[in-house]
C-alpha cells in the first residue's frame, strides 16, 4: 500500500479534529481550577459563606467540563500507534517519557485531590480542602507541561541522538528536552491562554445573571475575581506570546513568515495589524501579497529578533535562498537531505554485508548531513512552505481577539469596581458573546502552532508524509467521521448539562 496524498490528508484531518475537540475542554480546566482556588482562598480567609457557595457553583461547572473532556486526549494516543506509527517509532522515548509522566501525574494528583475537592467539604478541614483545590489547579497545569514539552520537541528537536541501527531518536539530555526554550515559551503561552479563557467564561456567565437580574451579588463577586485574574494573565499572555514569537523566529522562520504573509524578507519589517491576502498571489511571482493592509512599521523585526532594524527572512528567501543574508535554499537542503538518506541506506547495507569500513564511511556522511534529513523526503522545494492563508488568518484572529479580551477585562473590572456593571448592558452583552470568541482564539492558536509547522511532523527531520502508517485511507476516513459524531455528541452533552446547571444557579443543588 502506498502513502498516498489521500491517506496523509485524512490522517492529518483526523488528528486535527481530535486535537481541536480535545482543546475545547482542556483550557477551561487549566484556568477555572485557579479561579476556583482563588475564590476558595477568599472563603477560607473571610469565613463568608457566600464565597463558599460561589466556589461550589463554579466547581460544579468545572466538574461538567472535566467529565466530558476526560480521556478525549486518549484518542490521540490511539492515533499515534495506528496512523502515525512511523512517527511514534522514530520519536522513541523522547515523546514517550513526558507522556508517561503526564499520565501518572494526572492520575495521582487528579484522582486524589479532585475527590477531596468535591467530596471533602465537610470531611476534611477548611485548610486541607483549600490545599486540595490548589493542588488540583497546579496538577492539571503540570499535566499540560509534559504534553507541551513533547510538542515543543517536535517544533524544535533537542537533547537527542538518532540511532541509525534502530531508526529511533534516543534521549541524550533530559534537561535539554525539558528546558527546551520552545517548550518553555509554548507552555507559558498555552496555560496563560487557558486562564484568559476561564476568565471570559466566568465573566460571560456572570453577565448573563446580571442581564437576567438574578444572583446579582454572586455574579458581581465572580466578575471581580475573574476580571482581575483575566487582566493579570492577559498581560502575562502578551509577554509569553512575545517570547513565543521570538522562539519561532529563531527556530521556525518559515512559520513566522507564513504567519505574517511575508514573501520577501526585509530589514525593519513591519507587522500586519489588519490585512487581506491577495488570493491570486503564488510563490515566485511579483504580484502584491495583500489586497489591503494596515502595517505597524519595524514591529516584526522587533518581535522576531528584538531589534528594530533586524532582517526578517521571507518565504521566498528561504525557498530560493538569499546569498546576501547567508540563507540556504530549500533546493540545496533537499540535496543534502537526500545525501543523508542515501548514506543511511549505504550504512544499513554495509552493516548487513558486514563491511565495517564502508559502514563507518556511510555513517560519517550521514551524520554530516543529518540535520537536513527531512528535506530529503520532500518532492519539491515548494512543499516546505506551509499554508500561508491558514497561518496568517489564524495568527491574526488569535492576536486580534487576545487584544479585545484585554480591553474587555479592563472595562469589566472598572465598572464592577465602581459598582455600575449591572447597568452597563452593552458591557454585559459584550462579555456574554466573548465566551465563544475565547474558544475561537484557542483553536486559532492551535492552528497557528501546528498548521504553521507543516510540512514537518518533527521540524526539519521528518515530514508528515513519512510519519504516517501504511494503513488504508478508507479506515482513517471512517474513524474521522466516527470521531466527528462522538465528539459532537459530547460537546452537545456538555453544553446542555452546563446550560441546565447555569439556569439552576448558585443556590441550586450541586
Amino acid at each position: 500500500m502506498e502513502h498516498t496524498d489521500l491517506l496523509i490528508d485524512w490522517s492529518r484531518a483526523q488528528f486535527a479534529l481530535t486535537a481541536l475537540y480535545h482543546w475545547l475542554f482542556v483550557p477551561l480546566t487549566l484556568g477555572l481550577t485557579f479561579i476556583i482556588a482563588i475564590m476558595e482562598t477568599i472563603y477560607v480567609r473571610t469565613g463568608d459563606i457566600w464565597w463558599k457557595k460561589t466556589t461550589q457553583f463554579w466547581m460544579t461547572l468545572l466538574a461538567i467540563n472535566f467529565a466530558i473532556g476526560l480521556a478525549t486526549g486518549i484518542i490521540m494516543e490511539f492515533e499515534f500507534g495506528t496512523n502515525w506509527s512511523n512517527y511514534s517509532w522514530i520519536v522513541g522515548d523522547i515523546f514517550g517519557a513526558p507522556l508517561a509522566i503526564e499520565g501518572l501525574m494526572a492520575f495521582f494528583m487528579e484522582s486524589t485531590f479532585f475527590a477531596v475537592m468535591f467530596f471533602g467539604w465537610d470531611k476534611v478541614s477548611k485548610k486541607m480542602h483549600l490545599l486540595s483545590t490548589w493542588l488540583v489547579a497546579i496538577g492539571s497545569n503540570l499535566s499540560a507541561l509534559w504534553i507541551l514539552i513533547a510538542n515543543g520537541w517536535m517544533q524544535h528537536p533537542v537533547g537527542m541522538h538518532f540511532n541509525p541501527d534502530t531508526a529511533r531518536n534516543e534521549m541524550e539530555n533530559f534537561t535539554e528536552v525539558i528546558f527546551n526554550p520552545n517548550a518553555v515559551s509554548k507552555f507559558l503561552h498555552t496555560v496563560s491562554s487557558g486562564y484568559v479563557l476561564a476568565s471570559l467564561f466566568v465573566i460571560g456567565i456572570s453577565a448573563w445573571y446580571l442581564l437576567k437580574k438574578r444572583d446579582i451579588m454572586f455574579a458581581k463577586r465572580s466578575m471581580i475575581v475573574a476580571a482581575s485574574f483575566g487582566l493579570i494573565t492577559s498581560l502575562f499572555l502578551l509577554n509569553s506570546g512575545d517570547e513565543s514569537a521570538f522562539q519561532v523566529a529563531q527556530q521556525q522562520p518559515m512559520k513566522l513568515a507564513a504567519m505574517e504573509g511575508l514573501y520577501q524578507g526585509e530589514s525593519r519589517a513591519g507587522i500586519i495589524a489588519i490585512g487581506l491576502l491577495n488570493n491570486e498571489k503564488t510563490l515566485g511571482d511579483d504580484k502584491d501579497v495583500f489586497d489591503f493592509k494596515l502595517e505597524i512599521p519595524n514591529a516584526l523585526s522587533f518581535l522576531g529578533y528584538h531589534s528594530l532594524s533586524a532582517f526578517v527572512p521571507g518565504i521566498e528567501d528561504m525557498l530560493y535562498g538569499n546569498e546576501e543574508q547567508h540563507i540556504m535554499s530549500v533546493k540545496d537542503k533537499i540535496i543534502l537531505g537526500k545525501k543523508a538518506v542515501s548514506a543511511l541506506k549505504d550504512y544499513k547495507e554495509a552493516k548487513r554485508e558486514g563491511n565495517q569500513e564502508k559502514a563507518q564511511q556511510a555513517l560519517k556522511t550521514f551524520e554530516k548531513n543529518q540535520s537536513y534529513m527531512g528535506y530529503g523526503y520532500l518532492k519539491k522545494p515548494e512543499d516546505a512552505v506551509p499554508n500561508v492563508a491558514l497561518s496568517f488568518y489564524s495568527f491574526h484572529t488569535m492576536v486580534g481577539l487576545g487584544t479585545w479580551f484585554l480591553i474587555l477585562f479592563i472595562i469589566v473590572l472598572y465598572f464592577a469596581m465602581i459598582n455600575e456593571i449591572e447597568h452597563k448592558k452593552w458591557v454585559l452583552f459584550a462579555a456574554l458573546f466573548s465566551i465563544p470568541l475565547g474558544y475561537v482564539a484557542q483553536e486559532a492558536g492551535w492552528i497557528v502552532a501546528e498548521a504553521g509547522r507543516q510540512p514537518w511532523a518533527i521540524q526539519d527531520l521528518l515530514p508528515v508524509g513519512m510519519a504516517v502508517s501504511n494503513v488504508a485511507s478508507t479506515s482513517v476516513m471512517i474513524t474521522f467521521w466516527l470521531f466527528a459524531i462522538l465528539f459532537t455528541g459530547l460537546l452537545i452533552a456538555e453544553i446542555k448539562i452546563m446550560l441546565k446547571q447555569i439556569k439552576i444557579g448558585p443556590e441550586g443543588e450541586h
Partner: protein
Amino acid sequence: MHLIQKIYFFYYEGFKSMQVGKKLWVLIGIKLFILFAVIKWIYFPNYLETHFQTDEERSHYMLNQLTKEN
C-alpha cells in the same frame, strides 16, 4: 485497615451524595466503554505491534521506510 475503611467510606459517601455528578459518571462510563472497548480494539490496533514480532523487525522495517526511493 482503619485507614482503608476511612478512604472507602470517603469515596462511597461522596459518590452517594452526588447530584449532577451521577449523570456525569454515567456519561464518563459510556464514553470510556466506547473509547476502550469499541474504538481502540476495532479501529486502532497498534500498527507496528501487530505487524511485527520483535523490535529488531520493527527497526528493520523503519529503516526500509526511511531509505526507500521517493
